[in-house]
Structure formats: structure tokens, C-alpha cells
């Protein structure tokens, strides 16, 4: 077990190092003078651009830049933005709370809807409620945020006028975005809950429980659900990464502040250090979640650790 943890941890660190190196190389492969491009709409004079380049250390040879970049990364320093000149970590930290609030509340929506739809379609397999919920899960999987968003905004903000379509800060501003983003992730969770429950219900222990005279509901909740939970944990961790991607669109849809808006603005301004910072942050969160899920698996089921070490 300890060997498994160490191997996976080294793998995680290597992946993140490679991701950092890849972004470093990619940023320097961009043709032309990226600083001039980032400042093009400010009409900066050539000597201002040259001074900005020097201040950013871009006049140094690439190996020196790389060493400085890695050293900065280890201290949690992602450099400064090309556009405004403020630290990248500061820009990210200012926007992070809004995105975390959106992603966690969307995760709550996704888990509730996912377990609801998946549970119903497993419990009522082959009957009308089961067919309806599994069809709904399929629709949720195939409908992107750019379609479900305008649809729900039209329904709840314009037709019914129950919730605001834009704005930030109050709880009612969060409901509609969380619902839109949560629904997009609910289908994936529902499918895994459904499949896991069906597999568990087919096991001998479920038959035994039924033979003892337990009601179908008790068999499902007490015996099948705990067994089905493990693959669901994996999917929830993966979906959280997916939600971070979806947050980019959701924030645009609802004109909200956050990491997603920060990224889109940075891309449009070609502010590469800021893009790099957001990309590295998401790689860190995504890979970190995968790492923790693997650990949880190995802890819950010792066979997993043994298999992965051999592979």
C-alpha cells in the first residue's frame, strides 16, 4: 500500500512537472512578439514594450527563464500578467471564490439529481418511471450548457420571472447557474449509479436479502447502494474537473465573475502567463482529484493497489 501511494504520488508530480514544462515551451513557440501583441490595443511605445519585456525577464536566454519559472512555481509564484502587470496568483485568487461557489453548488445539484435519476431507473427497470428517468439522464448527457442555459434562463428568468438571469453575490443569483451546470454533470453520475445498482442487485447477497423477506426498497438502500458507491466516487471526482471546464461557459452565460471569465478574457488578450496560470491550476486540481480517488480505491479495495502497481 505504501509503495502504491509513493508510486502514484511520484507519477502525479511528474505529470504536473511535464504540464508546466509543456506550457513553458508552448508560450515561447508563439510566433512574433507576444508582449507587443498583448499590449497592442494600448498603443504602447516600443520602449515601453522593451521595458515590459525586460521586467518580465523575457530578454534572458530560455534556460535561465525556465529555471526562474520552475523556481517560481515551487514558491507558488506564477509570474505577472502581460496586460496589467499584476501577479497571476493574485488575479486567480480574486476570482477563485466565485468559481468554487458555483462548482460546489453545481456538484450538489449534480449529485442529488444523479442519485435520484440513477436510483429510480435502477429501481424501476423496465417500467415507465425507470424508462423516463434513464431517458432524462441521456438528455442531460447530450445537452450542452450553451443550450440548457438559454432554455432555463428563458423559462425561469423571463417567462416565470422567478430568478435573476444575471448578477452576483446573492444566493438567488447562484441558483440558476448552479442548476444549469449541475444538470450537465448529473447524467454521467446517473448512468454510473444506475449501472452500479443493477450490478449489485444481481449479486447473491441481494438475492439472500430478498429471500429473507426484505422489501425491495430496503434491499436497494441498505445492501446495493453501499456496494455501488465506489465507481460513483470516481465519476464524481472526474465530473468535478468537468465542472471546472463547464464553469467557463456558465460564467459567460450568466455574466458572472470567476476563473472561467478570467481565462476567456486572457485568451482574447493573448495574456499567456495568465492562461498558463489557469491551465496549471486546473491540471493541478484535476490530477490531484484523480490521485485522491485512486488512493480512496486502494484503501477501500486492496486488490486495486496491487493491480495498479503491477501494471
Amino acid at each position, binding site marked *: 500500500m505504501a509503495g502504491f501511494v509513493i508510486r502514484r504520488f511520484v507519477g502525479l508530480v*511528474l*505529470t*504536473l512537472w*511535464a*504540464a508546466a514544462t*509543456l506550457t513553458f515551451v*508552448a*508560450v515561447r*513557440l*508563439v510566433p512574433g512578439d507576444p508582449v507587443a501583441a498583448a499590449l497592442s490595443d494600448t498603443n504602447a511605445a516600443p520602449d515601453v514594450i522593451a521595458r515590459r519585456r525586460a521586467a518580465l525577464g523575457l530578454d534572458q536566454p530560455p534556460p535561465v527563464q525556465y529555471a526562474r519559472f520552475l523556481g517560481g512555481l515551487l514558491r507558488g509564484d506564477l509570474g505577472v500578467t502581460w496586460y496589467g502587470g499584476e501577479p497571476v496568483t493574485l488575479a486567480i485568487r480574486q476570482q477563485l471564490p466565485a468559481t468554487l461557489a458555483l462548482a460546489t453548488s453545481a456538484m450538489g445539484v449534480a449529485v442529488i439529481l444523479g442519485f435520484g435519476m440513477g436510483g429510480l431507473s435502477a429501481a424501476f427497470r423496465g417500467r415507465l418511471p425507470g424508462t423516463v428517468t434513464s431517458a432524462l439522464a*441521456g*438528455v442531460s*448527457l*447530450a*445537452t*450542452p*450548457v*450553451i*443550450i440548457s*442555459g*438559454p*432554455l432555463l*434562463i*428563458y423559462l425561469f428568468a*423571463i417567462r416565470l420571472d422567478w430568478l435573476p*438571469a444575471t448578477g452576483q453575490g446573492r444566493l438567488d443569483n447562484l441558483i440558476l447557474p448552479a442548476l444549469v451546470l449541475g444538470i450537465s454533470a448529473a447524467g454521467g453520475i446517473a448512468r454510473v449509479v444506475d449501472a452500479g445498482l443493477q450490478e449489485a442487485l444481481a449479486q447473491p447477497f441481494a438475492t439472500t436479502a430478498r429471500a429473507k423477506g426484505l422489501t425491495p426498497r430496503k434491499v436497494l438502500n441498505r445492501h446495493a447502494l453501499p456496494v455501488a458507491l465506489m465507481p460513483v466516487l470516481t465519476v464524481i471526482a472526474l465530473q468535478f*474537473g*468537468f465542472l*471546472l*471546464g*463547464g464553469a*467557463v*461557459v456558465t460564467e*459567460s*452565460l450568466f455574466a458572472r465573475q470567476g476563473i472561467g471569465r478570467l*481565462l*476567456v478574457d*486572457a*485568451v*482574447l488578450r*493573448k495574456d*499567456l502567463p495568465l*492562461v498558463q496560470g*489557469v*491551465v496549471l491550476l*486546473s*491540471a493541478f486540481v*484535476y*490530477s490531484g482529484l484523480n490521485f485522491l480517488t485512486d488512493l480512496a480505491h486502494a484503501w477501500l479495495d486492496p486488490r486495486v493497489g496491487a493491480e495498479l502497481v503491477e501494471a
Partner: protein
Amino acid sequence: MKAGGGLAWLGVALAVVAATLAAPWLVPGSPLAVNAEAQFGPPGGAYPLGADSFGRDVLNRALWGGRASILNAALATGVAVGGGLLVGGLAGMLGSWVDWGLMRAVDVMLSMPGLLLAVALVALLEVGDVQAALAVGISLAPGFARIVRVAVIGVLQQEYVQAARALGASRWRVFSRHVLRNIGSQVVAFAVVNFGWALLNLATLDFLGLSGSPSDPTWGRMLAEGRRYLRRAPWIALAPGLLLTTLVVAITLTGDAWRRRLPGG
């Protein structure tokens, strides 16, 4: 789902694709033609699906826009399939350190959500339609490479392939005569699924304004305009939204049905 269901969905997908590709003949007018008098005109009369904020015909733009969306998604899928076949094929055929190195590179690219990767790639390319398609294609390629690699290794373990190698067939001969033919249907099935993802991710980049000019219609850009005028003219978003959802659902279900018909699928 039965194979018949898959065929029905394939028909739906082909109908949407045919309608958009035939846009120059079905709706011959220019999708850029503005008409100040028809601004925000509701569906009916000369504008069966309404008019947008410049008085442009929504039906016309939805079909022309679909044509652009589908062609761009086809380009993105081509990049994903080409890159995936190259990387996955090399890794599977050559094995050892080539395999190890390529798969670690794939791991790194998959260490972040695909949509974020595509958005970040747009920052390195330029803002434009072809660039957005390239970015989406590159972001889908690592997943494709993994599938191809597993399929190639599966074929190499077949006894007749091992016999061919023992008889002295070159790696290239084994690849072109045995491997490519055996993984063909799997590659096509996964390419169909990737085409659906490419459509969605491209529409998202369009929606975010990370691709070409806002006046050239695509489904994603029409949805972005429709979002802006949802209160005043909800029909602007309706046609592109319905067409995109229908096509993606049909493609996904076709791909699912196809995969189930494959041996071991």
C-alpha cells in the same frame, strides 16, 4: 437499443447534415443580408423562423451556420483521428520506450479537462474558425490515441498476426495488412462519437467568442446572439439550439448502436 434504432438515428443525423450542406440551394439568399425593417421580426411570412437583431433571416442563418459548424467539426475530427492514429499507432506498434514516452505525453494532455485545453490552445494559435477547429482537434487527439493504442495491441496479440511476424513480415506490412483492417470499424465508431464532441466543443468556443467573425453564422455564435436577446427575440436561439441538440443526440445514439454491434462492444 436494437440495430434498427441505430439506423433510424443515423437517418436523423444524415437528414440534418444534408439540410445544412444543401443550404446554398435550399436558402439561396446571403446569410449576411440585413434588413432594418425586419429587425427582431417574429416567425412568419418571409421569415419562417423569425429575424435577428440585424433583421437577418434566422432560418437562412441556421442552415448556413450549420454548414459552417459541421465542416469545422469535420476538420477537428480529422485532426483528432489523424493525430490519434499516428500517436496511438506508433505507440502500439513500436512498444517499449516509444510507447512509454508517447503515453506519458498523452497523460499530460489529459491531465486537464478537454474544453479548457481547447480554450488554452486558442490562446497559442489565433482567434479564428480554422484555429478553433485545430484546437478542438488537438484536444480530442490524446483520447483517440489511447483507444487506437489499445486496439492495435489487441490485434498484435492475435495468433495469425504473430504467425505473420514470425514469417518475417515487416512492421509496416503487419500494420497495413492486419492491424489497420482490424481496427477500422472501431476507429470509425469512435470517430463518429468524436465528431459529436467536436460539434459541442466548437459550438462552445464559438459561443465564447473564441473563433471567427461574429457576423459569419455558426450554431454557437447564433446561440450567443440569441442569449443576448432572449427577452426580446427568443426565436434567434431556438433554431440553432434545436438543430445542434438533434444532431448531437442522433450522432451519440448512432455511435452507441454501432459500438454495440462490434465484437466485444
